[in-house]
């Protein structure tokens, strides 16, 4: 999750997010160079004691300051478009989960192999343990196998929400009556947090998303646990 006063991007946990960070580095360099050039131009103009009263046009400089920004835009746009289409690519997903936004919680369905459905509510302040993140922890996390291509189908049951996990580079609007598709692949084991990103009412800030990426064997054990009849009542599950 983000650290206090963090300004930069979170560490990447998926290949797509890594590519976004590299693209960010590329564009940041272009912006720094442009900013240096602008500051230098301002300094030169301010420090100059000469002025040309009869200046009306300058064809050469006008051509230069049209062509160079066009080239800069192409240099930025080409990797941007490549990344944009990369985020839409889905490589034979091995698992499909559904994420449904409600006011004000998320519900998840794993219906590929078994019928596993559960709701995910934010843990209130009184229920947090020591070390838990305020406004980010949930009662039931989304458990996924690591290094596995997952398809997430995002929709909503009432108003528009947005399913977001910044460290995986994921954001998709959950629109009622529409099914949006996300490609997800966690490249490392860990817990990744996100929050609803579309204003959806009074508790919009209090419906977080928590993804727990675990080894495949642990994921299988979790599925068995979720299917266990005895734990149904304590997990706010439907079956």
């Amino acid at each position, binding site marked *: 999750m983000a650290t206090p006063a963090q*300004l930069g991007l979170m560490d990447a946990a998926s290949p797509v997010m890594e590519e976004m960070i590299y693209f960010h580095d590329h564009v*940041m360099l272009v912006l*720094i160079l442009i900013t240096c*050039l602008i500051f230098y131009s301002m300094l030169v103009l301010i420090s100059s004691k000469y002025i040309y009263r009869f200046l009306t046009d300058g064809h050469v400089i006008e051509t230069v300051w049209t062509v160079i920004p066009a080239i800069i835009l192409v240099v930025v746009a080409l990797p941007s478009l490549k990344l944009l289409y990369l985020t839409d690519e889905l490589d034979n997903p091995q698992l499909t989960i559904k994420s449904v936004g409600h006011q004000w919680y998320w519900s998840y369905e794993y219906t590929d192999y078994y019928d596993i459905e559960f709701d995910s509510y934010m843990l209130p302040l009184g229920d947090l343990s020591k070390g838990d993140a305020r406004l980010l922890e949930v009662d039931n996390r989304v458990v996924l196998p690591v290094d596995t291509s997952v398809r997430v189908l995002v929709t909503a049951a009432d108003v528009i929400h947005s399913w977001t996990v910044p460290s995986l580079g994921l954001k998709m609007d959950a629109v009622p009556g529409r099914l949006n598709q996300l490609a997800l692949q966690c490249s490392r084991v860990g817990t990744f947090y996100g929050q609803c990103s579309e204003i959806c009412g009074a508790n919009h800030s209090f419906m977080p998303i928590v993804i727990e990426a675990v080894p495949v064997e642990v994921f299988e054990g979790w599925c068995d646990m979720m299917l266990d009849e005895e734990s149904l009542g304590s997990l706010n599950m439907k079956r």
Partner: protein
Amino acid sequence: MSDDAEKSWGPKHFIQNTPCARNSFLYGMGGGAVGGFAYFLWTSNPRRSYHALVVSFTATVLLYWVPCRYQYAQKRLKSRMINQGLKTHIVMQGTPEAELLASAQEQGTKS
């Protein structure tokens, strides 16, 4: 996250944590100084020498950054391929498919 960890932000964060950034700017500053000074020796015009310094700085940064990031991307791709190959090898070890793959690779290296 340690409370004692130094928090950097802005250009310092970018230069410290981005691959190729530190060297790009160091070479850029050096190249800019050399370019500006050389122009001054040639023309004895301080104002235009500063312009040459800025242009040399920008050009040197870009000339180092682009190849460096390209090589970094190539290394990243190779490391991903190696990791994937190792994982496939571990998963398929002892299976008939692994033997078929090994023999196909041997034929590929011989040809």
